[in-house]
Protein backbone atom coordinates (compact mmCIF):
# COMPACT_ATOMS: atom_id res chain seq x y z
CA UNK A 1 0.00 0.00 0.00
CA UNK A 2 1.78 3.05 -1.11
CA UNK A 3 -0.96 5.26 -2.44
CA UNK A 4 -3.29 4.61 0.44
CA UNK A 5 -6.92 3.65 0.51
CA UNK A 6 -9.87 5.72 -0.50
CA UNK A 7 -12.22 5.22 2.42
CA UNK A 8 -15.86 6.25 2.67
CA UNK A 9 -17.51 6.38 6.09
CA UNK A 10 -21.29 6.55 6.31
CA UNK A 11 -22.67 8.44 9.28
CA UNK A 12 -26.21 9.05 10.40
CA UNK A 13 -27.42 11.74 12.70
CA UNK A 14 -29.71 10.23 15.33
CA UNK A 15 -31.66 11.57 18.31
CA UNK A 16 -30.10 10.99 21.72
CA UNK A 17 -32.26 8.00 22.52
CA UNK A 18 -32.63 8.65 26.25
CA UNK A 19 -34.22 12.03 25.44
CA UNK A 20 -36.90 10.79 23.04
CA UNK A 21 -40.36 11.06 24.59
CA UNK A 22 -43.30 8.73 24.06
CA UNK A 23 -46.93 9.77 24.29
CA UNK A 24 -48.81 6.62 25.19
CA UNK A 25 -52.28 8.13 24.77
CA UNK A 26 -51.71 9.76 21.41
CA UNK A 27 -49.37 7.11 20.06
CA UNK A 28 -46.79 9.72 19.13
CA UNK A 29 -43.02 9.65 19.27
CA UNK A 30 -41.59 13.07 20.05
CA UNK A 31 -38.05 13.31 18.74
CA UNK A 32 -38.09 17.11 18.57
CA UNK A 33 -37.17 17.54 22.21
CA UNK A 34 -34.13 15.27 21.87
CA UNK A 35 -30.63 16.45 21.07
CA UNK A 36 -28.91 14.89 18.08
CA UNK A 37 -25.58 13.11 17.79
CA UNK A 38 -23.68 10.87 15.38
CA UNK A 39 -24.98 7.33 15.61
CA UNK A 40 -22.56 5.84 18.19
CA UNK A 41 -21.73 2.80 16.03
CA UNK A 42 -20.72 5.11 13.18
CA UNK A 43 -18.11 6.66 15.46
CA UNK A 44 -16.47 3.25 15.66
CA UNK A 45 -16.53 3.07 11.86
CA UNK A 46 -14.93 6.50 11.66
CA UNK A 47 -12.27 5.56 14.21
CA UNK A 48 -11.50 2.39 12.24
CA UNK A 49 -11.10 4.52 9.11
CA UNK A 50 -8.76 6.95 10.87
CA UNK A 51 -6.62 4.07 12.17
CA UNK A 52 -6.36 2.55 8.70
CA UNK A 53 -5.45 5.93 7.24
CA UNK A 54 -2.76 6.38 9.87
CA UNK A 55 -1.30 3.05 8.81
CA UNK A 56 -1.64 3.15 5.03
CA UNK A 57 -2.24 6.78 4.17
CA UNK A 58 -5.21 7.62 1.99
CA UNK A 59 -8.32 9.70 2.40
CA UNK A 60 -11.61 9.61 4.26
CA UNK A 61 -14.87 10.91 2.83
CA UNK A 62 -17.79 11.06 5.27
CA UNK A 63 -21.25 10.82 3.72
CA UNK A 64 -24.60 11.39 5.38
CA UNK A 65 -28.16 11.64 4.16
CA UNK A 66 -30.42 13.88 6.16
CA UNK A 67 -31.86 17.34 6.74
CA UNK A 68 -29.76 20.52 6.90
CA UNK A 69 -28.85 20.02 10.52
CA UNK A 70 -27.14 16.71 9.64
CA UNK A 71 -24.30 18.99 8.57
CA UNK A 72 -23.45 19.08 12.29
CA UNK A 73 -22.82 15.33 12.25
CA UNK A 74 -20.52 15.76 9.27
CA UNK A 75 -18.66 18.63 10.99
CA UNK A 76 -18.15 16.28 13.90
CA UNK A 77 -16.86 13.60 11.51
CA UNK A 78 -14.43 16.13 10.00
CA UNK A 79 -13.18 17.05 13.46
CA UNK A 80 -12.63 13.38 14.22
CA UNK A 81 -10.50 12.75 11.17
CA UNK A 82 -12.52 12.75 7.95
CA UNK A 83 -10.92 14.78 5.15
CA UNK A 84 -14.05 15.68 3.26
CA UNK A 85 -17.78 15.51 3.83
CA UNK A 86 -20.82 15.08 1.61
CA UNK A 87 -24.41 15.69 2.67
CA UNK A 88 -27.28 14.27 0.63
CA UNK A 89 -30.03 16.72 1.36
CA UNK A 90 -33.34 17.07 -0.40
CA UNK A 91 -37.00 16.85 0.57
CA UNK A 92 -37.25 14.14 -2.05
CA UNK A 93 -35.00 11.93 0.11
CA UNK A 94 -37.34 12.16 3.10
CA UNK A 95 -39.33 9.20 4.36
CA UNK A 96 -36.87 6.68 2.92
CA UNK A 97 -36.83 3.11 4.20
CA UNK A 98 -33.63 1.04 4.12
CA UNK A 99 -33.98 0.18 0.42
CA UNK A 100 -34.43 3.80 -0.69
CA UNK A 101 -31.72 5.01 1.69
CA UNK A 102 -29.19 2.46 0.45
CA UNK A 103 -30.14 3.19 -3.15
CA UNK A 104 -29.63 6.93 -2.65
CA UNK A 105 -26.26 6.39 -0.94
CA UNK A 106 -25.23 4.03 -3.75
CA UNK A 107 -26.11 6.68 -6.34
CA UNK A 108 -23.96 9.28 -4.59
CA UNK A 109 -21.05 6.86 -4.20
CA UNK A 110 -21.20 5.92 -7.89
CA UNK A 111 -20.94 9.59 -8.70
CA UNK A 112 -17.97 10.07 -6.34
CA UNK A 113 -14.48 9.47 -7.63
CA UNK A 114 -14.08 5.84 -6.65
CA UNK A 115 -13.41 4.09 -3.37
CA UNK A 116 -11.68 1.03 -1.92
CA UNK A 117 -13.41 0.63 1.40
CA UNK A 118 -16.77 1.67 2.84
CA UNK A 119 -17.13 1.59 6.61
CA UNK A 120 -20.25 2.14 8.69
CA UNK A 121 -21.74 1.16 12.04
CA UNK A 122 -23.34 -2.28 12.33
CA UNK A 123 -26.67 -0.54 12.91
CA UNK A 124 -28.17 2.73 14.03
CA UNK A 125 -29.62 3.26 17.48
CA UNK A 126 -32.87 4.72 16.12
CA UNK A 127 -33.71 2.44 13.17
CA UNK A 128 -31.89 -0.59 14.58
CA UNK A 129 -32.18 -2.58 11.34
CA UNK A 130 -28.53 -3.08 10.34
CA UNK A 131 -29.75 -3.33 6.76
CA UNK A 132 -28.49 -0.20 5.06
CA UNK A 133 -24.84 -1.38 4.89
CA UNK A 134 -25.50 -4.79 3.30
CA UNK A 135 -28.18 -3.34 0.98
CA UNK A 136 -25.75 -0.66 -0.16
CA UNK A 137 -23.09 -3.30 -0.86
CA UNK A 138 -25.59 -5.16 -3.01
CA UNK A 139 -26.49 -2.02 -4.99
CA UNK A 140 -22.78 -1.43 -5.60
CA UNK A 141 -22.21 -5.12 -6.39
CA UNK A 142 -19.37 -5.48 -3.89
CA UNK A 143 -18.96 -7.98 -1.03
CA UNK A 144 -19.61 -6.97 2.56
CA UNK A 145 -18.63 -8.15 6.01
CA UNK A 146 -21.04 -7.33 8.83
CA UNK A 147 -20.44 -6.99 12.58
CA UNK A 148 -16.65 -6.78 12.42
CA UNK A 149 -14.96 -6.27 15.78
CA UNK A 150 -11.38 -6.44 14.52
CA UNK A 151 -10.03 -5.01 11.30
CA UNK A 152 -6.66 -5.10 9.69
CA UNK A 153 -5.50 -3.91 6.31
CA UNK A 154 -2.42 -5.22 4.57
CA UNK A 155 -1.20 -5.93 1.04
CA UNK A 156 -4.38 -4.83 -0.64
CA UNK A 157 -6.42 -7.24 1.41
CA UNK A 158 -8.59 -6.66 4.41
CA UNK A 159 -8.88 -9.13 7.27
CA UNK A 160 -11.84 -8.79 9.61
CA UNK A 161 -12.98 -10.79 12.59
CA UNK A 162 -16.71 -10.86 13.12
CA UNK A 163 -19.16 -12.64 15.32
CA UNK A 164 -21.65 -14.81 13.48
CA UNK A 165 -24.19 -15.90 16.04
CA UNK A 166 -21.73 -17.22 18.58
CA UNK A 167 -18.90 -18.24 16.26
CA UNK A 168 -16.14 -15.82 15.42
CA UNK A 169 -15.06 -15.84 11.79
CA UNK A 170 -11.80 -14.42 10.52
CA UNK A 171 -12.50 -13.36 6.96
CA UNK A 172 -10.25 -12.11 4.21
CA UNK A 173 -11.39 -10.04 1.28
CA UNK A 174 -9.95 -7.80 -1.42
CA UNK A 175 -11.06 -4.28 -2.27
CA UNK A 176 -13.53 -2.80 -2.88
CA UNK A 177 -15.51 -3.99 0.11
CA UNK A 178 -18.02 -2.68 2.66
CA UNK A 179 -17.57 -3.47 6.35
CA UNK A 180 -19.94 -2.73 9.23
CA UNK A 181 -18.31 -2.49 12.65
CA UNK A 182 -19.41 -3.09 16.22
CA UNK A 183 -18.70 -1.09 19.35
CA UNK A 184 -15.96 -3.56 20.25
CA UNK A 185 -13.91 -2.60 17.18
CA UNK A 186 -12.14 0.28 18.95
CA UNK A 187 -12.58 3.23 21.27
CA UNK A 188 -13.40 6.37 19.26
CA UNK A 189 -11.05 9.22 20.07
CA UNK A 190 -12.37 12.60 21.09
CA UNK A 191 -11.84 15.63 18.94
CA UNK A 192 -9.86 18.53 20.34
CA UNK A 193 -10.83 22.18 20.13
CA UNK A 194 -8.17 22.57 17.44
CA UNK A 195 -9.70 19.72 15.42
CA UNK A 196 -13.07 21.43 15.60
CA UNK A 197 -11.68 24.75 14.45
CA UNK A 198 -9.92 23.02 11.58
CA UNK A 199 -13.11 21.18 10.64
CA UNK A 200 -14.92 24.48 10.31
CA UNK A 201 -12.60 25.45 7.49
CA UNK A 202 -13.69 22.49 5.35
CA UNK A 203 -16.77 23.02 3.21
CA UNK A 204 -19.43 20.32 3.48
CA UNK A 205 -20.47 19.47 -0.05
CA UNK A 206 -24.23 19.17 -0.55
CA UNK A 207 -25.99 17.17 -3.24
CA UNK A 208 -29.66 17.24 -4.14
CA UNK A 209 -31.91 14.66 -5.78
CA UNK A 210 -31.54 16.46 -9.10
CA UNK A 211 -27.76 16.16 -9.00
CA UNK A 212 -27.92 12.45 -8.21
CA UNK A 213 -30.55 11.83 -10.88
CA UNK A 214 -27.81 11.92 -13.52
CA UNK A 215 -26.78 8.45 -12.36
CA UNK A 216 -29.96 7.25 -10.69
CA UNK A 217 -33.68 6.72 -11.01
CA UNK A 218 -35.18 9.54 -8.94
CA UNK A 219 -38.37 7.51 -8.47
CA UNK A 220 -36.38 5.25 -6.15
CA UNK A 221 -35.58 8.05 -3.68
CA UNK A 222 -37.42 8.85 -0.45
CA UNK A 223 -40.92 7.75 0.48
CA UNK A 224 -42.06 7.04 -3.12
CA UNK A 225 -39.08 4.72 -3.59
CA UNK A 226 -39.67 2.90 -0.33
CA UNK A 227 -41.49 -0.43 -0.56
CA UNK A 228 -42.23 -0.51 3.16
CA UNK A 229 -44.22 1.96 5.18
CA UNK A 230 -45.22 2.34 8.80
CA UNK A 231 -48.91 1.59 8.78
CA UNK A 232 -49.41 2.45 12.44
CA UNK A 233 -47.43 2.95 15.60
CA UNK A 234 -48.43 1.57 18.96
CA UNK A 235 -46.87 2.73 22.17
CA UNK A 236 -47.59 0.00 24.65
CA UNK A 237 -48.26 1.31 28.12
CA UNK A 238 -45.60 0.25 30.57
CA UNK A 239 -46.05 -3.38 31.47
CA UNK A 240 -46.74 -4.40 35.00
CA UNK A 241 -46.67 -7.68 36.81
CA UNK A 242 -48.51 -7.97 40.08
CA UNK A 243 -45.36 -8.80 41.93
CA UNK A 244 -44.64 -9.31 45.58
CA UNK A 245 -42.28 -6.51 46.49
CA UNK A 246 -40.45 -6.86 49.79
CA UNK A 247 -39.27 -3.51 51.06
CA UNK A 248 -38.08 -4.20 54.57
CA UNK A 249 -37.66 -7.88 55.16
CA UNK A 250 -34.87 -9.61 53.31
CA UNK A 251 -35.28 -12.77 55.40
CA UNK A 252 -38.96 -13.11 54.55
CA UNK A 253 -38.22 -12.42 50.89
CA UNK A 254 -35.44 -14.98 50.71
CA UNK A 255 -37.56 -17.61 52.44
CA UNK A 256 -40.49 -17.11 50.11
CA UNK A 257 -38.42 -17.04 46.94
CA UNK A 258 -36.41 -20.09 47.89
CA UNK A 259 -39.61 -22.01 48.62
CA UNK A 260 -41.82 -20.76 45.81
CA UNK A 261 -39.40 -20.33 42.96
CA UNK A 262 -36.40 -22.50 43.57
CA UNK A 263 -38.04 -25.53 45.17
CA UNK A 264 -38.35 -27.47 41.87
CA UNK A 265 -34.63 -27.05 41.41
CA UNK A 266 -33.59 -28.38 44.79
CA UNK A 267 -31.80 -31.62 44.22
Amino acid at each position, binding site marked *: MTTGLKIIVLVKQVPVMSQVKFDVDRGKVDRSSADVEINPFDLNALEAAVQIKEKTGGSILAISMGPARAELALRDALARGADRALLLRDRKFAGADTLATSYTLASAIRQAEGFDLILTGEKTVDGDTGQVGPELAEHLDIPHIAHAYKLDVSDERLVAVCDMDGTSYTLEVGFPVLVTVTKDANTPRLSTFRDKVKARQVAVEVKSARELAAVADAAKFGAPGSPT*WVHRVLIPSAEYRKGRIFTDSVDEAVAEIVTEVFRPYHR
Partner: protein
Amino acid sequence: MAADKEVLVFAEQREGVINPVTYELLGKGRELADKLGVVLASVILGSQVDSAAAELIYHGADRVYLYDGEILADFDLLNYKHNMVKLLRETQPEIFLLGATHWGRSLGARVAAALGTGLTADCTGLDIDKNGNFVQIRPAFSGNVLAHIRTRTRPQMATVRYKIMKSLKRDTGRKGEIIKKEVELVPSLIAILHKEKASDINIADAEMIVSGGAGLKKAEDFALLAELAGLFGATVGSSRPPVDSGWIGREHQVGFSGNTVKPRVYLACGISGSPQHLAGMRESDIIIAINTDPSASIFRIADYGIVGDLYIVVPRLIKSIKECRR
Protein backbone atom coordinates in the same frame (compact mmCIF):
# COMPACT_ATOMS: atom_id res chain seq x y z
CA MET B 1 -42.02 -24.82 -11.60
CA ALA B 2 -44.92 -24.67 -9.28
CA ALA B 3 -47.24 -21.85 -10.16
CA ASP B 4 -48.99 -21.86 -6.82
CA LYS B 5 -48.35 -19.11 -4.33
CA GLU B 6 -46.04 -19.65 -1.40
CA VAL B 7 -44.90 -18.42 1.94
CA LEU B 8 -41.17 -19.24 1.95
CA VAL B 9 -39.00 -19.81 5.02
CA PHE B 10 -35.20 -19.70 4.94
CA ALA B 11 -33.80 -22.72 6.79
CA GLU B 12 -30.59 -21.57 8.45
CA GLN B 13 -28.11 -24.36 9.08
CA ARG B 14 -24.48 -24.71 9.93
CA GLU B 15 -22.70 -28.02 9.47
CA GLY B 16 -26.04 -29.73 8.97
CA VAL B 17 -27.53 -28.47 12.23
CA ILE B 18 -30.63 -26.37 11.74
CA ASN B 19 -30.82 -23.15 13.72
CA PRO B 20 -33.93 -23.52 15.94
CA VAL B 21 -35.27 -20.14 14.81
CA THR B 22 -36.07 -21.97 11.56
CA TYR B 23 -38.66 -24.18 13.28
CA GLU B 24 -40.26 -21.12 14.85
CA LEU B 25 -40.48 -19.51 11.39
CA LEU B 26 -42.09 -22.68 10.02
CA GLY B 27 -44.63 -22.60 12.87
CA LYS B 28 -45.54 -18.99 12.09
CA GLY B 29 -45.23 -19.56 8.33
CA ARG B 30 -47.74 -22.44 8.57
CA GLU B 31 -50.27 -20.12 10.20
CA LEU B 32 -49.70 -17.36 7.61
CA ALA B 33 -49.86 -19.80 4.67
CA ASP B 34 -53.10 -21.30 5.97
CA LYS B 35 -54.67 -17.86 6.43
CA LEU B 36 -53.68 -16.92 2.87
CA GLY B 37 -54.57 -20.34 1.46
CA VAL B 38 -51.10 -20.86 0.00
CA VAL B 39 -48.28 -23.40 0.21
CA LEU B 40 -45.66 -23.27 2.97
CA ALA B 41 -42.26 -23.79 1.38
CA SER B 42 -38.81 -23.77 2.88
CA VAL B 43 -35.39 -23.47 1.31
CA ILE B 44 -32.23 -25.06 2.65
CA LEU B 45 -28.75 -24.55 1.27
CA GLY B 46 -25.89 -26.67 2.56
CA SER B 47 -23.74 -29.71 2.03
CA GLN B 48 -25.34 -33.12 2.59
CA VAL B 49 -28.44 -31.72 4.23
CA ASP B 50 -31.01 -34.29 3.03
CA SER B 51 -31.99 -35.34 6.54
CA ALA B 52 -32.23 -31.69 7.58
CA ALA B 53 -34.60 -31.12 4.65
CA ALA B 54 -36.88 -33.88 5.95
CA GLU B 55 -36.93 -32.18 9.37
CA LEU B 56 -38.36 -29.06 7.72
CA ILE B 57 -41.31 -31.13 6.50
CA TYR B 58 -41.77 -32.70 9.94
CA HIS B 59 -41.99 -29.14 11.30
CA GLY B 60 -44.66 -27.92 8.90
CA ALA B 61 -43.29 -27.30 5.38
CA ASP B 62 -45.30 -28.59 2.40
CA ARG B 63 -42.37 -28.19 0.07
CA VAL B 64 -38.62 -27.90 0.48
CA TYR B 65 -36.15 -26.51 -2.05
CA LEU B 66 -32.81 -28.20 -1.47
CA TYR B 67 -29.48 -26.83 -2.67
CA ASP B 68 -26.62 -29.23 -2.05
CA GLY B 69 -23.09 -28.07 -2.69
CA GLU B 70 -19.80 -28.10 -0.84
CA ILE B 71 -19.45 -24.33 -1.10
CA LEU B 72 -22.71 -24.01 0.84
CA ALA B 73 -21.48 -26.00 3.87
CA ASP B 74 -20.42 -22.80 5.57
CA PHE B 75 -21.57 -19.24 5.15
CA ASP B 76 -20.64 -18.07 1.70
CA LEU B 77 -22.45 -14.80 1.31
CA LEU B 78 -22.34 -14.35 -2.45
CA ASN B 79 -23.14 -17.95 -3.36
CA TYR B 80 -26.04 -18.05 -0.92
CA LYS B 81 -27.26 -14.71 -2.22
CA HIS B 82 -26.96 -15.66 -5.88
CA ASN B 83 -28.92 -18.90 -5.53
CA MET B 84 -31.54 -17.36 -3.25
CA VAL B 85 -32.18 -14.47 -5.64
CA LYS B 86 -32.54 -16.91 -8.52
CA LEU B 87 -35.04 -19.04 -6.60
CA LEU B 88 -37.10 -16.04 -5.54
CA ARG B 89 -37.26 -14.73 -9.11
CA GLU B 90 -38.47 -18.15 -10.20
CA THR B 91 -41.03 -18.94 -7.48
CA GLN B 92 -42.13 -15.38 -6.61
CA PRO B 93 -43.39 -16.12 -3.11
CA GLU B 94 -45.82 -13.77 -1.39
CA ILE B 95 -43.77 -13.73 1.80
CA PHE B 96 -40.15 -14.67 2.56
CA LEU B 97 -39.04 -15.04 6.18
CA LEU B 98 -35.55 -15.35 7.65
CA GLY B 99 -34.32 -15.52 11.24
CA ALA B 100 -33.03 -12.21 12.61
CA THR B 101 -29.64 -13.79 13.20
CA HIS B 102 -26.44 -12.12 12.01
CA TRP B 103 -26.51 -14.39 9.00
CA GLY B 104 -30.22 -13.95 8.26
CA ARG B 105 -29.95 -10.17 8.47
CA SER B 106 -26.90 -9.98 6.25
CA LEU B 107 -28.23 -12.35 3.62
CA GLY B 108 -31.78 -10.98 3.81
CA ALA B 109 -30.62 -7.41 3.20
CA ARG B 110 -28.62 -8.40 0.12
CA VAL B 111 -31.45 -10.45 -1.33
CA ALA B 112 -33.98 -7.67 -0.71
CA ALA B 113 -31.76 -5.07 -2.39
CA ALA B 114 -31.10 -7.38 -5.36
CA LEU B 115 -34.85 -7.86 -5.85
CA GLY B 116 -35.71 -4.25 -5.03
CA THR B 117 -38.19 -5.37 -2.41
CA GLY B 118 -38.94 -4.31 1.15
CA LEU B 119 -37.39 -5.97 4.19
CA THR B 120 -38.56 -5.44 7.76
CA ALA B 121 -35.94 -6.10 10.42
CA ASP B 122 -36.20 -8.06 13.62
CA CYS B 123 -39.96 -8.61 13.75
CA THR B 124 -41.64 -9.80 16.92
CA GLY B 125 -45.09 -10.21 15.39
CA LEU B 126 -46.46 -11.20 11.97
CA ASP B 127 -50.09 -11.39 10.98
CA ILE B 128 -52.59 -11.29 8.15
CA ASP B 129 -55.17 -8.57 8.82
CA LYS B 130 -58.86 -8.85 7.96
CA ASN B 131 -58.23 -7.47 4.48
CA GLY B 132 -55.64 -10.11 3.78
CA ASN B 133 -52.67 -7.77 4.19
CA PHE B 134 -49.41 -8.99 5.68
CA VAL B 135 -48.58 -6.91 8.76
CA GLN B 136 -45.11 -6.97 10.26
CA ILE B 137 -44.70 -5.79 13.83
CA ARG B 138 -41.35 -4.71 15.16
CA PRO B 139 -40.16 -2.88 18.21
CA ALA B 140 -38.58 0.51 17.58
CA PHE B 141 -36.93 3.09 19.81
CA SER B 142 -35.49 0.54 22.21
CA GLY B 143 -38.74 -1.33 22.48
CA ASN B 144 -40.76 1.72 23.53
CA VAL B 145 -42.76 1.62 20.32
CA LEU B 146 -44.32 -1.14 18.25
CA ALA B 147 -44.36 -0.24 14.57
CA HIS B 148 -46.80 -2.00 12.25
CA ILE B 149 -45.18 -2.17 8.85
CA ARG B 150 -46.55 -3.13 5.46
CA THR B 151 -44.80 -3.80 2.18
CA ARG B 152 -46.03 -2.90 -1.29
CA THR B 153 -43.58 -5.10 -3.23
CA ARG B 154 -43.22 -8.89 -3.47
CA PRO B 155 -41.90 -10.91 -1.85
CA GLN B 156 -42.72 -9.21 1.43
CA MET B 157 -39.56 -9.95 3.38
CA ALA B 158 -38.96 -9.98 7.12
CA THR B 159 -36.31 -11.13 9.54
CA VAL B 160 -37.85 -12.50 12.71
CA ARG B 161 -36.52 -12.46 16.25
CA TYR B 162 -35.61 -15.77 17.89
CA LYS B 163 -37.70 -17.15 20.76
CA ILE B 164 -40.85 -15.25 19.88
CA MET B 165 -42.79 -17.51 17.48
CA LYS B 166 -43.92 -21.01 18.41
CA SER B 167 -42.72 -24.02 16.49
CA LEU B 168 -45.04 -26.89 15.67
CA LYS B 169 -44.59 -30.25 17.31
CA ARG B 170 -42.29 -32.45 15.24
CA ASP B 171 -44.46 -34.92 13.35
CA THR B 172 -42.70 -37.55 11.23
CA GLY B 173 -46.08 -38.41 9.71
CA ARG B 174 -46.18 -35.08 7.90
CA LYS B 175 -45.74 -35.35 4.13
CA GLY B 176 -44.18 -32.94 1.72
CA GLU B 177 -42.09 -32.77 -1.42
CA ILE B 178 -38.37 -32.14 -1.59
CA ILE B 179 -37.28 -30.41 -4.79
CA LYS B 180 -33.57 -30.65 -5.53
CA LYS B 181 -32.23 -27.53 -7.16
CA GLU B 182 -29.01 -27.07 -9.04
CA VAL B 183 -26.40 -24.90 -7.35
CA GLU B 184 -25.03 -22.13 -9.56
CA LEU B 185 -21.56 -21.08 -8.51
CA VAL B 186 -20.25 -17.52 -8.41
CA PRO B 187 -16.89 -16.28 -7.06
CA SER B 188 -16.94 -16.22 -3.24
CA LEU B 189 -14.63 -13.16 -2.91
CA ILE B 190 -14.65 -13.59 0.87
CA ALA B 191 -12.37 -16.32 2.27
CA ILE B 192 -12.83 -17.88 5.70
CA LEU B 193 -9.33 -17.95 7.22
CA HIS B 194 -10.31 -19.20 10.61
CA LYS B 195 -13.32 -19.77 12.82
CA GLU B 196 -13.82 -20.66 16.42
CA LYS B 197 -16.64 -20.89 18.85
CA ALA B 198 -16.69 -17.42 20.40
CA SER B 199 -17.86 -18.83 23.68
CA ASP B 200 -20.04 -21.57 25.08
CA ILE B 201 -22.39 -18.97 26.41
CA ASN B 202 -25.70 -19.06 24.63
CA ILE B 203 -27.74 -16.78 26.77
CA ALA B 204 -30.74 -16.86 24.45
CA ASP B 205 -31.28 -20.54 25.22
CA ALA B 206 -30.63 -20.37 28.99
CA GLU B 207 -33.28 -21.90 31.26
CA MET B 208 -32.23 -19.78 34.22
CA ILE B 209 -30.26 -16.53 34.26
CA VAL B 210 -28.63 -14.63 37.10
CA SER B 211 -27.81 -11.14 35.83
CA GLY B 212 -25.82 -8.28 37.26
CA GLY B 213 -25.95 -4.58 36.44
CA ALA B 214 -24.65 -1.19 37.48
CA GLY B 215 -25.24 -2.13 41.12
CA LEU B 216 -22.11 -4.28 41.00
CA LYS B 217 -19.05 -2.50 42.37
CA LYS B 218 -16.30 -4.32 40.51
CA ALA B 219 -15.65 -7.01 37.92
CA GLU B 220 -14.72 -9.64 40.52
CA ASP B 221 -18.19 -9.42 42.05
CA PHE B 222 -19.62 -11.40 39.16
CA ALA B 223 -18.15 -14.35 41.08
CA LEU B 224 -20.91 -13.89 43.65
CA LEU B 225 -23.55 -14.14 40.91
CA ALA B 226 -21.70 -17.07 39.37
CA GLU B 227 -21.84 -18.89 42.71
CA LEU B 228 -25.62 -18.47 42.87
CA ALA B 229 -25.95 -19.43 39.19
CA GLY B 230 -23.76 -22.46 39.78
CA LEU B 231 -26.28 -23.91 42.23
CA PHE B 232 -28.74 -24.37 39.37
CA GLY B 233 -26.50 -24.64 36.34
CA ALA B 234 -27.82 -21.19 35.46
CA THR B 235 -26.13 -18.78 33.07
CA VAL B 236 -24.66 -15.48 34.21
CA GLY B 237 -26.11 -12.49 32.40
CA SER B 238 -25.44 -8.79 32.43
CA SER B 239 -27.03 -5.48 31.61
CA ARG B 240 -25.08 -3.05 29.49
CA PRO B 241 -22.95 -1.08 32.02
CA PRO B 242 -20.74 -4.00 33.20
CA VAL B 243 -20.22 -5.07 29.58
CA ASP B 244 -19.22 -1.56 28.56
CA SER B 245 -16.80 -1.48 31.50
CA GLY B 246 -15.21 -4.64 30.16
CA TRP B 247 -16.13 -6.65 33.28
CA ILE B 248 -17.87 -9.39 31.33
CA GLY B 249 -18.12 -10.37 27.66
CA ARG B 250 -20.78 -9.04 25.35
CA GLU B 251 -22.13 -12.56 24.84
CA HIS B 252 -23.54 -12.27 28.37
CA GLN B 253 -25.45 -9.09 27.64
CA VAL B 254 -29.23 -9.28 27.80
CA GLY B 255 -31.11 -6.78 25.67
CA PHE B 256 -28.32 -6.43 23.15
CA SER B 257 -29.54 -7.06 19.63
CA GLY B 258 -30.23 -10.74 19.25
CA ASN B 259 -29.88 -11.48 22.94
CA THR B 260 -33.54 -11.70 23.84
CA VAL B 261 -33.99 -14.21 26.62
CA LYS B 262 -36.97 -16.18 27.83
CA PRO B 263 -35.79 -18.31 30.75
CA ARG B 264 -37.98 -19.94 33.39
CA VAL B 265 -36.36 -17.77 36.03
CA TYR B 266 -34.61 -14.43 35.55
CA LEU B 267 -32.86 -12.97 38.57
CA ALA B 268 -31.82 -9.33 38.13
CA CYS B 269 -29.26 -8.12 40.67
CA GLY B 270 -28.51 -4.43 40.79
CA ILE B 271 -30.24 -3.80 37.46
CA SER B 272 -32.49 -0.75 37.32
CA GLY B 273 -34.20 -1.80 34.09
CA SER B 274 -33.43 0.33 31.03
CA PRO B 275 -35.97 -0.01 28.20
CA GLN B 276 -33.43 -2.06 26.22
CA HIS B 277 -32.86 -4.44 29.09
CA LEU B 278 -36.57 -4.83 29.83
CA ALA B 279 -37.25 -5.49 26.14
CA GLY B 280 -34.65 -8.24 26.25
CA MET B 281 -36.02 -10.15 29.26
CA ARG B 282 -39.65 -9.21 29.85
CA GLU B 283 -40.91 -12.53 28.45
CA SER B 284 -39.18 -14.52 31.22
CA ASP B 285 -41.56 -16.84 33.11
CA ILE B 286 -40.58 -15.61 36.56
CA ILE B 287 -38.68 -12.38 37.19
CA ILE B 288 -36.94 -11.71 40.50
CA ALA B 289 -35.37 -8.29 41.06
CA ILE B 290 -32.97 -7.12 43.72
CA ASN B 291 -32.28 -3.40 43.82
CA THR B 292 -31.61 -0.76 46.45
CA ASP B 293 -33.82 1.77 44.65
CA PRO B 294 -37.52 1.07 45.25
CA SER B 295 -38.47 3.18 42.21
CA ALA B 296 -36.31 1.14 39.78
CA SER B 297 -38.24 0.21 36.62
CA ILE B 298 -37.28 -3.42 36.99
CA PHE B 299 -39.73 -3.75 39.91
CA ARG B 300 -42.65 -2.94 37.61
CA ILE B 301 -42.22 -6.21 35.78
CA ALA B 302 -40.92 -8.31 38.66
CA ASP B 303 -42.87 -11.21 40.15
CA TYR B 304 -40.70 -10.96 43.24
CA GLY B 305 -38.88 -7.80 44.18
CA ILE B 306 -36.49 -7.27 47.03
CA VAL B 307 -35.60 -3.69 47.86
CA GLY B 308 -32.15 -4.19 49.25
CA ASP B 309 -28.46 -4.48 48.63
CA LEU B 310 -27.51 -7.34 46.36
CA TYR B 311 -24.34 -7.81 48.44
CA ILE B 312 -26.57 -8.75 51.37
CA VAL B 313 -29.43 -10.49 49.55
CA VAL B 314 -27.46 -12.72 47.18
CA PRO B 315 -25.31 -14.34 49.91
CA ARG B 316 -28.49 -14.98 51.93
CA LEU B 317 -30.12 -16.63 48.93
CA ILE B 318 -27.07 -18.84 48.43
CA LYS B 319 -27.02 -19.80 52.11
CA SER B 320 -30.72 -20.53 52.22
CA ILE B 321 -30.66 -22.66 49.07
CA LYS B 322 -27.71 -24.67 50.38
CA GLU B 323 -29.55 -25.26 53.66
CA CYS B 324 -32.61 -26.53 51.82
CA ARG B 325 -30.50 -29.07 50.04
CA ARG B 326 -28.89 -30.48 53.11
